[in-house]
């Protein structure tokens, strides 16, 4: 490609000297303002490199005269947001949890705050939507509660946990290991299983379930109620419904009676502040199973003053 610059006749402009199959390129001079704009971008670039973080060093980078950083921006935004939320959080703190539903805006804010806290502290066991894990952790979205599903009860459970040996106010109870400790023999456990499956309408009544009824009366009714309706002051589940945390088939029930799990939930009063716990409780309440109305505390009060 020979360098053959020449003046183009039609335009009077020089060509760049390249030629491809007869096609040539004009070397049209740029307008002056374009050149000025170009110089301006150079000045801009230099100023930027001085004012803002620009040059990478070995372990860090130049900080810039203005001292700007994206981390600093984030810090400012977080602080501004905390300030923005402060009045709402204060209002939630000043409101008793049972009064929250009467203030829809506050309740909504609490549910949202609780959802955020739930995603950090609770999903590990209870699942992203509070659905629980079969045979391990209870669902928080259904209408069956071991320890009570009204706002105050949920708040108490979250605050004090379940079966925390180091905490006096924790919710606690102990189902005996009827099989392991030899309280009932295998045939008797089979009869109790028959009875429990009969009252939950999974099996028809039989001779075995009739024998089981007597055993139930003697061994189980004190916590689970005479008809198996459950007892919340002991966290004793209702045995007549369709919800089975550890399974409602014969094998699962036999295993449970032989050696119960007595599940544990950590208390949160030593990790979270009371407002977060209140918001968490509101969120759990909102998942679909929340029980309306105030828990009649005086009447159902347990031995430790638990609601």
């Amino acid at each position, binding site marked *: 490609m020979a360098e053959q610059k020449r003046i183009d006749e039609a335009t009077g402009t*020089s060509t760049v000297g390249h030629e491809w199959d007869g096609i040539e390129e004009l070397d049209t001079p*740029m307008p002056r303002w374009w050149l000025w704009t170009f110089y301006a971008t150079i000045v801009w670039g230099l100023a930027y490199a001085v004012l803002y973080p620009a040059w990478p060093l070995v372990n860090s980078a130049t900080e810039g005269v203005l001292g700007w950083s994206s981390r600093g921006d984030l810090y400012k935004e977080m602080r501004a947001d905390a300030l923005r939320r402060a009045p709402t959080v204060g209002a939630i703190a000043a409101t008793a949890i049972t009064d929250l539903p009467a203030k829809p805006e506050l309740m909504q804010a609490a549910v949202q705050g609780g959802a955020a806290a739930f995603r950090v502290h609770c999903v590990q066991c209870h699942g992203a939507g509070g659905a629980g894990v079969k045979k391990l952790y209870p669902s928080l979205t259904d*209408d069956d509660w071991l320890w009570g599903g009204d706002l105050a009860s949920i708040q108490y459970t979250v605050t004090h946990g379940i079966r925390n040996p180091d905490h006096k106010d924790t919710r606690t109870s102990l189902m005996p290991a009827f099989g392991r400790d030899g309280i009932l023999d295998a045939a008797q456990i089979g009869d109790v299983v028959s009875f429990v499956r009969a009252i939950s309408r999974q099996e028809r009544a039989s001779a075995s379930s009739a024998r089981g009824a007597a055993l139930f009366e003697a061994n189980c009714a004190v916590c689970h109620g005479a008809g198996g309706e459950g007892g919340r002051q002991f966290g004793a589940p209702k045995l007549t419904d369709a919800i089975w945390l550890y399974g409602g088939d014969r094998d699962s029930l036999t295993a449970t009676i032989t050696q119960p799990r007595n599940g544990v939930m950590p208390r949160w009063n030593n990790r979270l502040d009371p407002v977060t716990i209140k918001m968490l409780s509101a969120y759990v309440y909102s998942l679909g199973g929340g029980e309306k109305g105030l828990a009649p505390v005086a009447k159902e009060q347990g031995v430790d003053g638990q609601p």
Partner: protein
Amino acid sequence: MASPEDLSGQPAPLYEARKGVYPKAVNGPFRRFKWAIMAVTLAIYYGTPWIRWDRGPYAPDQAVLVDLANRRFYMFQIEIWPHEFYYVAGLLIMAGVGLFLVTSAVGRAWCGYACPQTVWTDLFQHVDRLVDGDRNAQVRLAKGPWTFEKVAKRGLKYLIYLAIAFWTGGAWIMYFADAPTLTADFWTGQAAPVAYGTVALLTATTFILGGFLREQVCVYMCPWPRIQTAMMDEKSLLVTYKDWRGEPRGSVKKAMAHPGAFGDCIDCNQCVAVCPTGIDIREGPQIGCITCALCIDACDGVMAQVGRPRGLIDYCTLDDAATEKAGGTGQPIRKTLTRPRTLIYFGVWTAIGTAMLFSLGQRTRLDLAVQHERSPLYVQLSDGHVRNNYTLKLRNMETRPRRVAVTVSGLPGAAVWTEDGAREGAGQAVTLTLSPDSVTRLKLFIAAPGAGPARQDFTISTRGLDGDPRGDSDIIQFDRPEAGQ
């Protein structure tokens, strides 16, 4: 690479300074048309935000308002929501096809008359003539020394530039907020920083682009002149110097001395003098020509003075130019305008417009979107029923509160309730009150008997309870535990 040198051995200049353009005042039908277009477009631009339009107590009363904060676009009786942004996209497509149509029919008419760059440049050039005088005085002043008079005139001129630029920038922000309120806020320092920033930016761009860069924008910056070459064909109207009639050029005296030896062009250079982009149309079609037709006015004026027929420079298609050169007469304008290409563009343009108008008339102002909550998909209830949770998004796009019913159908034995309600006494429908012009999000609980298919489609629908029953419906899935779970 070797340094850019031309054959003369002189280094080519690194840049080309702008050649001053000092267009002369001209009068004629095209100039009057340009005045009319300028008046109309500027009146629309500066005036529209001040038109009031009553929409009742729940919506702003500004006829045209782009409410970015609340994400609404108001245009007279039409209100556009963000999810209906395709109407704006449709308008933009119509504008694009409209440009194709106009370009294929009448060439660069957009550039010559309606483009904001043209309109504001025209306005600023008029300011030049007002302050500095007509072409000759302008040239004299530009070349002259910096006397007191020049400083004073330049100062006054830039002040007027700045006033126009500021007014232009100020008018822009009025489209984005209530104009009277914003004006008051602006002058009392209460407006948002972005308002001041926008005004400053648009003042600067108007001042620079309209006051100084002018035709440089068209020649160097604007992509449209390049694209237009693909839009035009040999039947598009161009401003054409009819060289077969004009050449060879010669003064009236020469023509009288040698009858028949000279063409009609008397080489008076009036066409160059009036050109706002500083080109010579007699060199043929070129990128600098925005087809404003002022040279036609100038030439027609001169032809009238020397007693020759008008139209030495005139709108003419390439086809007609060839015909006339060969001695024939061109086609009537009606024929060049109605040819397949323009008719197809026009058809597409009207089709989009009609479709948009039709769908505007058909759109419901009560919109429903349902999402099935997936975590968990279903909840086993203690009485053997199964509950699914749904998130409902209800858009009430009318500027009045609405009472609506949300109904479930196709799911036997279903019970529906909201967070505020309870399962006890729940039926197949819930009644809601929606705030005007708002989106309501709510959680809907639906319980149904546990016996049934693992996946079942059913319908959730909304309907107005206050006169206008039109609504929306969605088909969505109800999940139950699989057998054995």
